[in-house]
């Protein structure tokens, strides 16, 4: 597959990079990335992957755009309120870059559909906002052997880790299972700095692009933590956990299942 003249111009700032070049750009154009969750993390990831010319982007989300999303979910605009997030995201991706083929999945990722969705993608971005979904993405990527980027954000803190399933530390190596319901902060207590989602989601896109190009070191066996107030990044070295219920020496999770959804105790809360 050769690049058209227009593509050579569009991607010229990539192509002049020694680590990318025309070959690397062609690789990106023939790559497929799945983004689970078109929210705070998924939004910047989708925008940058689209701009970078990742050939196929899949987006999973059952939600509709809400006014409270717009403080951080920069792929959705005011006019999109009330529309499906996947449709809103697909519109922006196409507007940025018609080279990209977008596939939308208007559903929540669950144990009974996620394997089928993930299959065929080269890399997955976990942009989900709840623990059962994070464990599900981790487990599904393990069973399908698809590398993924985990990320989480809360208040002014963010974290990030890239997982090559079966090869590097997975989410369950660190966090065995979801926290008990009572430990989860309620909707009114928590909050998140909008731009934090942009920082961390963009780092996820960076890891996806590096993986697709096969360049440099990935953020594996390492949890990157970020505190926006102190403007502090830390890399915490990790190693695979022999007790991991998924990828340890004596795994107890042998097939995909949904973890219990934590229940928010506030009425009318947009969980």
């Amino acid at each position, binding site marked *: 597959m050769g690049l058209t003249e227009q593509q050579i111009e569009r991607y010229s700032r990539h192509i002049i990079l020694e680590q990318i070049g025309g070959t690397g750009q062609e690789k990106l154009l023939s790559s497929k990335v799945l983004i689970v969750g078109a*929210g*705070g993390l998924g939004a910047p990831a989708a925008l940058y992957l689209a701009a970078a010319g990742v050939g196929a982007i899949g987006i999973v989300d059952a939600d509709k755009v809400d006014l409270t999303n717009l403080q951080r979910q920069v792929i959705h605009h005011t006019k999109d309120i009330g529309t499906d997030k996947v449709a809103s995201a697909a519109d922006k991706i196409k507007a940025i870059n018609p080279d990209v083929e977008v596939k939308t999945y208007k559903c929540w990722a669950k144990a009974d559909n996620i394997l089928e969705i993930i299959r065929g993608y080269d890399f997955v971005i976990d942009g989900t*906002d709840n623990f059962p979904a994070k464990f599900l993405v981790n487990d599904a990527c393990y069973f399908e052997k698809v590398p993924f980027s985990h990320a989480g954000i809360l208040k002014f803190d963010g974290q990030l880790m890239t997982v090559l399933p079966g090869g590097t530390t997975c989410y369950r190596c660190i966090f065995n299972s979801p926290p008990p319901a009572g430990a989860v*902060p309620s909707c009114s207590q928590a909050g998140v700095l909008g731009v934090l989602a942009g920082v961390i989601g963009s780092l996820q896109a960076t890891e996806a692009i590096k993986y697709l190009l096969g360049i440099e070191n990935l953020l594996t066996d390492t949890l990157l933590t970020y505190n926006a107030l102190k403007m502090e990044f830390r890399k915490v070295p990790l190693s695979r*956990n022999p007790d991991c219920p998924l990828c340890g020496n004596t795994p107890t999770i042998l097939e995909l299942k949904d973890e219990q959804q934590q229940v*928010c105790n506030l009425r009318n809360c947009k969980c």
Partner: protein
Amino acid sequence: MKIFVNGKETDLNNSLTVIELLVEQKVKMPEMVSVELNGQVLRRSDFEKNVLKDGDKVEFLYFMGGGNGIN
């Protein structure tokens, strides 16, 4: 004795177990934290057993959800 908590040098007057350190460091929700001691993630059941030694490196790894900020 000195230990390192999330990379920060910390002085301890007494020997503490991991669970005592969580209290001492005012971790509000220990259920939301995984603890790594010298590069190995500890079993939750070992929080009460592991007594910290001089020079130990402890990392509190927090559960972090997503942008909705609910969990």
